[in-house]
């Protein structure tokens, strides 16, 4: 609307020669411009405010891909950090990262999309808040088990060490396991002391381990112990992030920050009703990336299909 008035009142050279036709010319011009800008006129241009925890690394990568995808469609996107963020009139605020989400939830009652935040943390922070949704950082459990089954066709038993945060997934894990014909063995470690015996016990009945994010089980020092121990037991580990695939897991499945940004943009566009964004329930990302540590695979003498083949097969199952 802001653009139309100046264009409509524009006096083009030579127009005055038509004298009384000027009003008509103005009308035609206004119509032409209106047609050109039809989408924006029909649905007021949406405004997305992006708040990213830090303007660098994975936060920035997610923000860039989100901004690029929305801007291509002519959306207005403004970017800020938690320090510079203030409530505004945007149609949607996308909070990238946990600190950003905490700040945004405290500052607005308008729609919010959480990005790059783990499900358990999101639920703790935003539980019961209306108009707040998340594209979880985690991959769905069924996809992780499907990947293990594709990569290790003889797989019948999987061990999953759980800690204070991941223990809530125990029931879901076992239900999915039953559905996929995989016996899921879990052991819960309440404190660091329990972890080593838990792993030893699980290894006796499991062919592979699934490592889930947990502040105890996947703590930096526990990880070192975890990978040394599982390697000694000759059990491959599926993990949840690219750094873990480099550190000692045989494979990892995750969505990259770029995938999160693009998928969020697609979700936002699809949820635009013309006068607001109605995202609905939170969801896991559809996109994923598989990393394989071929050095570990070779040492464990496990012949894995390539990441491309696994990706294709896993996509077909989704």
């Amino acid at each position, binding site marked *: 609307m802001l653009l139309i008035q100046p264009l409509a009142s524009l006096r083009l050279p030579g127009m005055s020669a038509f004298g009384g036709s000027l009003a008509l010319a103005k009308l035609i011009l206004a119509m032409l411009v209106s047609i050109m800008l039809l989408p924006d006129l029909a649905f007021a241009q949406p405004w997305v405010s992006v708040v990213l925890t830090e303007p660098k690394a994975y936060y920035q990568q997610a923000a860039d891909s989100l901004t690029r995808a929305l801007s291509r469609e002519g959306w207005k996107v403004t970017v800020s950090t938690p320090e510079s963020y203030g409530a505004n009139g945007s149609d949607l605020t996308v909070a990238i990262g946990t600190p950003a989400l905490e700040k945004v939830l405290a500052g607005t009652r308008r729609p919010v999309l959480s990005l790059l935040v783990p499900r358990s943390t999101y639920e703790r922070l935003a539980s019961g808040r209306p108009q707040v949704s998340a594209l979880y950082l985690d991959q769905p459990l069924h996809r992780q088990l499907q990947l293990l089954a594709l990569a290790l066709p003889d797989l019948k038993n999987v061990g999953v060490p759980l800690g204070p945060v991941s223990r809530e997934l125990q029931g879901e894990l076992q239900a999915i396991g039953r559905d996929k014909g995989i016996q899921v063995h879990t052991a819960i470690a309440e404190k660091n002391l329990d972890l080593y015996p838990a792993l030893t016990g699980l290894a006796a009945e499991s062919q592979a381990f699934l490592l889930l994010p947990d*502040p105890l089980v*996947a703590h930096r020092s526990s990880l070192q112990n975890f990978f*040394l121990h599982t390697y000694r037991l000759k059990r491959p580990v599926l993990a949840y992030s690219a750094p873990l695939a480099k550190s000692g897991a045989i494979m990892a499945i995750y969505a990259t920050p770029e995938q999160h940004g693009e998928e969020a943009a697609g979700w936002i566009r699809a949820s635009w009703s013309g006068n607001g964004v109605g995202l609905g329930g939170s969801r896991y990302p559809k996109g994923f990336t598989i990393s394989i540590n071929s050095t570990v695979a*070779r040492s464990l*003498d496990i012949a894995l299909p390539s990441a491309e083949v696994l990706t294709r097969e896993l996509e077909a199952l989704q």
Partner: protein
Amino acid sequence: MHSLYAWAGAADTLSEVDYFAEQPVVLSASRLSQPVNRAPAAVTVITREMIEASGFRHLVDVLRLVPGMVVGWQGGNTAAASYLGLADGFPRSMQIMVDGRSVYSPSYGNTFWRGIPVTLDDVDRIEVVRGPNVANDGINSLFGTIHIFTRHSVETLGGMGEAAVGEEHYREVNLRYGAETDNGSWRLGLVGREDERHAVAQDLASDLQLSFRGDYQLSNRDELMLQFGAAKGNWRGTNVGFVFSEEQDADFLGGFTNVEWRRSLGAAREWSLQLQHSFNDNEEDYPQFPPFDPTTGDFRVSSSGLRFSYLDNFEDDFRYSLALEYRNDQAWAPDLIADGATVRNHIYGLSGSLEWNPAPQWVVHAAAMVEHYRDILGTNVSPRVAVNWLPAEGHAFRLGAAHAVSGGVGLYANHADIKLSIGGEPVYQFVLGTQDLETEKNNSVEIGYLYSNPRHHLNLDLRLFNNHIYDMVDARRLGDFTRYYFNEGSVTQTGVEYQLRWAPQAGSWVSLSQAWVGADSANEKYEASVPEFTSALLASHRLGGIDASLGYYHIRDLRWRGAQQDSKYNRLDLRLAKSWKMATGRLQGAFVVQSLLGREFESFDADQMPGYGEQVFDTRGYVSLKYEFR
């Protein structure tokens, strides 16, 4: 404020940092071992589980589990492990390494097993390469290498206290504590031990050992391992081969430092720099026989080394490694070597290995070591080639050939000088070194077959081999009295060995190793020193919360070089153990009976004084109680 690389969050919360933060490469290229079916040589892996089930309390005894390996003791202090024989009380045809640090003594080429400050509780695993491995591990690996790996310090956080007591004056206290720091972890261990091996008068031995290991993550790609340790032993008898009297005893002091800086260049590449120093100091008084000048069995040996290695496992079908090494070995033994002078050997080594997969079912290995010994032994090249063929899942064949060298009797054989003097003038010259000795050499070929059935938890490793060992170093009398060292004689060994492991269910497993070796030589001593048959069976089963295990070790008549009688054992050990989980930790009690079938002659028995007594290992038992907490 939100550092990307700091560990994030409260103890009960996750954040995105848990997903994206860079992590140190835990399973770095050098930590990953090659699958045995793709390795260029046969490998026996002795795990912690096996060590515990065996009930053995000395590192060297555990090696009985290796096919073709014989373990012997003289008195309570000097132990010897010999793979495929041809050894006297100072075996020198195996390279022995603890965390990449060679522990053979530069003086005799042997190993002071009892003086290595590594407890069995520290050990993560022992990998024994069966077959010449000089191409990778350097001189002495004429028949193979024993790699002892200790546990990473992050695996031993918290405390452990163990007390064991048994017959034959056996007492042991083992203490360990480990903790985390901002960027790593460490542990400190202390062991006090006393035992009698053979119930002869001269074999009560006591040890006090201290060991430290720290692992520090300097950055996500830099890791520093720091180790040091010391061992003090008061051992009745001798460390240098002969007991003259009941009063003779040896005070041993050993120490080492080992520092390794490892840099990961991604998951598959790394380089490392290792710096090590170790020494062994022996004070041993001989009885004096006036009017001859007093003599002792004192010695001091040391070894200092620097090693740079580069490992590249990046390409799926092509991998290589390179290593450069410098070592300085020294020996001083006033009444045994070079008339009191310190003798040295400066060693420069360059080695490389290649692994190529021309097709998924083929692996081609080539490796070589060039070692230059500046002072003795000269320059030696030790190549090895091997081809693995994996025609079907679970089956692998290996064909290998190698040329390997051993330093013989080390600095001693080149510089030995043992005599009786009066007023500084030699009267009787017993032994004299021959300064231009060459290395002992082995041309070896082998065929290996490996079968693996993961579904039935069954693994078989079979090896047929032929070794032609020549330029053997041996002492011979010239004239009436004096013995000199020469390179002479050869032996051809042909043998077959296998190891089988079956783990039918959790907590139940069987490991069986056997070897038959035939030897052909013009020298009967050489032939007799090759173990015709060895057998080791270790089985464990969990029943009603009790771990019961049984070990059976057998060698048929074998006469160590220099021994007066054959060594043979037919040993049966039994262990029962139970663990209890406590509020703060775990308690384990164990009861072990050793040599249940009776007296076993296990000594390499060099010529000892009259009335020394029979060196037999008699039936005995011990109990232990161990408490671990974090």
